[in-house]
């Protein structure tokens, strides 16, 4: 299962959603794709029943735009500062810890964070982020063939 997280109307915050949509186009049937906007607690339900889950979110860690980082969320907490999914104070890292406390983490959970350049209002992704989205989506889709 691939879950994209973000806000498509705040520039590069939509990177995770863009990956989800791209994977949906590319991936073979059998890969479930979801998009989560708004409050990230929805993740805990979104991945229930799935054994292997990939979550893609935008990041704001100071790395060059388009940098993709991967975290194994089962082995350790996510670095809170680097993920920005939400303006909602309840982001992916919170959802992961909530699920850990409730023993509702999937068997395998990889979180990819795509470094964004701009999070101002608008629908467009920056070019570097656009490229990163394409590459990550292609890699995720082919990994499942």
């Amino acid at each position, binding site marked *: 299962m691939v879950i994209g997280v973000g*806000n*498509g*109307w705040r520039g590069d915050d939509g990177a995770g959603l863009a990956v989800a949509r791209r994977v949906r186009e590319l991936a073979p049937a059998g890969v479930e794709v979801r998009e*989560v*906007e*708004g*409050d990230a*607690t*929805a993740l*805990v*339900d979104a991945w229930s029943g799935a054994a292997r889950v990939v979550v893609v979110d935008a990041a704001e860690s100071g790395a060059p735009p388009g940098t993709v980082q991967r975290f194994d969320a089962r082995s350790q907490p996510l670095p809170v500062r680097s993920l920005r999914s*939400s*303006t*909602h*104070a*309840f982001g992916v890292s*919170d959802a992961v*810890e*909530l699920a*850990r*406390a*409730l023993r509702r983490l999937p068997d395998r959970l990889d979180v990819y964070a795509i470094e964004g350049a701009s999070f101002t*209002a608008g629908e467009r992704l920056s070019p570097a982020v656009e490229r990163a989205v394409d590459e990550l989506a292609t890699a995720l889709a082919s990994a499942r063939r």
Partner: protein
Amino acid sequence: MADREIITEVLARVEGEGAMDVRIRDGQVQDVQLRIYEPPRFFEAFLRGRRFTEVPDITARICGICPVAYQMSSIAAMEDVCGVGPLHEQIRALRRMLYCGEWVESHALHVFMLHAPDFLGYSSAFEMARDHPGVVESALQLKKAGNALMRVIGGREIHPINVRVGGFYRAPTRAELAPVVEELKVAREFALEAVAFTASLPTPDFEEDYVFLALSDPDVYAIEGGRLVSNTGLDLAPSQYDEHVVEEHVEHSTALHSRLRDGTRYLVGPLARYALNRERLSPVAREAADAAGLQDVCRNPFRSIVVRAVEILYALDEALRLIEAYEPPDPPGVEVLPHAGVGHGWTEAPRGMLWHRYEIDDDGTILDAKIVPPTSQNQGRIEESLHGFVQQHVELDDDELRLRCEQAVRSYDPCISCATHFLRLEIDRG
């Protein structure tokens, strides 16, 4: 004690990004400011030049927590300007059901994930989840029920796509709503427990003399419309709002502050709705409120968590009532033709009254848009309230005072992402 400075980098568990500054000199609170430093949202400008029919889809994007509120206020305003008469009873029922779903979701997030940890001494919901997994699980169940309602009626869970000026694109069938009924019934039991749970939380003894403003309807607990009333005698139609309420720019914030013409700061949201409309709650919700020890009016902002739980219960109960009487409207919406003029609309967002005003031309192009979200209305009143609260607790040490201030701010559930966007808290004691 006279020379201390407290700086909190990020005030967590508040929607959006902002900061709070408290200035204390010789034990006297001199000033409390809620600063909002992200540039204002540009949605009002986005809307200019767009079609009048686009408002529900565009304004839904202002907030990931309360998109339905934005949709409902925007379409009410457009239906006003275009002269759409009363819509089919079942179209209105569907709108109210959808809105109930959003109330449940938004309140469950705030009550359990954002606010309850404060009362129990946890720094986050997941810390609380380790010791109180049942509480957090029931919150997730509640949210799931709200989601289900939003998904069936709105087309998807967040940012519903089925809402349009004049009604819906498609009305769900009774069969589609049937599975939701079971979820709502289970959730209603959780909500009853939630009211008791919130009532058991230790709350600071603190009361405020609020001017409350909320929509009111003679027949139901107002959500998707009504007249704006107050405990001071106001009784307004949507078009009269800006005659009575002024918005002012204050230097420390990029959100506009609202006040009544005479300068009074007022409060919208759950406490206001409950104070003004308690009689219209369903029997089960009223009984739960009584059992929780809520009086007719609740003036303690920290007890707003109980009121939110009562509203969760009400919204679930109300959705069940509406579903029981539901027959799919055919057609699911009416064709709306543009009509040049100015229209106004308001509804009760989970955080309080949300007012929209649009001017459109004969082609249906939007010439002007104005959106007044609940948080910008409450901001001035929150500052006033904090002023008193900090004064009352000024002897606390810095860390304790900071925690109490955070809890106080969160009791107002400010959604700063709507009004503009983390909250930082700074206490300066000279």
